[in-house]
């Protein structure tokens, strides 16, 4: 969190000066008026009280995301804790608690929606973007392992039968897991077809592979 304090003739001027110092927009900050500007002093000459404000700018995407998720889970009447991890340019938030299945939804639908809106809400408050991944009780990790196993199994089947297999519709992240899992297989190839949100991975034998 960055904080600036400024004094000026009016509240507006003081806020403006703080925003310039912080390099932030007005809707991204929290403004606190510490001192109201007073009326002109005696004969308009002495003791004019200046306005003083404190402007704070939360610039940590992890903190912003947790604040948003706390409000959301409270509104959903869910008790949850949040663990924040950083990996390269990604921020990973793992939500823990009991009975969190409703945060995941069918095939992770709800989790995708929560992640999408959290990224939007955080991007709105920040000048520079960072990617936020949200997981619930390690669901993504387990799903990733399941998808890799599925990909390997289906790849064997395609090799054996020589027929292509079309998978069920998946999100871009999930499709990427399949493509990556099979990228070193030389007898088969993978690609996606169809339009979002019904885009599917196809595992197909390579044409001139024997």
């Amino acid at each position: 969190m960055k904080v600036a304090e400024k004094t000026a003739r009016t509240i507006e001027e003081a806020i403006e000066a703080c925003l310039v110092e912080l390099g932030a927009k007005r809707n991204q900050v929290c403004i606190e008026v510490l001192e109201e500007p007073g009326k002109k002093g005696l004969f308009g000459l002495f003791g004019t009280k200046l306005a003083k404000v404190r402007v704070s700018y939360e610039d940590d995407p992890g903190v912003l995301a947790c604040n948003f998720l706390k409000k959301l889970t409270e509104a959903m009447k869910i008790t949850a804790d949040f663990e924040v991890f950083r990996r390269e340019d990604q921020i990973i938030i793992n939500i823990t608690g009991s009975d969190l299945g409703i945060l995941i939804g069918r095939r992770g639908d709800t989790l995708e929606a929560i992640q999408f809106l959290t990224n939007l809400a955080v991007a709105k408050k920040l000048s520079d973007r960072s990617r936020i991944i949200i997981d619930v009780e390690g669901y993504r990790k387990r799903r990733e392992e399941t998808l890799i196993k599925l990909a390997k199994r289906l790849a064997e089947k395609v090799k054996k039968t020589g027929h292509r297999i079309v998978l069920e519709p998946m999100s871009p992240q999930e499709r990427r897991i399949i493509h990556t899992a099979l990228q070193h297989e030389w007898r088969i190839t993978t690609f996606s077809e169809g339009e979002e949100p019904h885009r599917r991975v196809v595992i197909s034998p390579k044409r001139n592979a024997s």
Partner: protein
Amino acid sequence: MKEVVEVLAKALVDNPDQVIVAQNTTERTVHLQLTVAPEDMGKVIGKQGKIANAIRTIVKAAAVKDGRRVIVDIDQ
């Protein structure tokens, strides 16, 4: 349910003080009417309704325990 839509909408718009959610509960359904400032409409709908659908998905999840059907409408 109303609070869920409020939290989500307020985090996405430029004018959070103009976010209003009206709730109308009947025996089987909960009808939520979200009103935002005209210039914020795009922020709660998104390209091809992507944001609106995400809001609906989350509200539906919150309503699972309740057992009622939820409808979320967006108004200017």
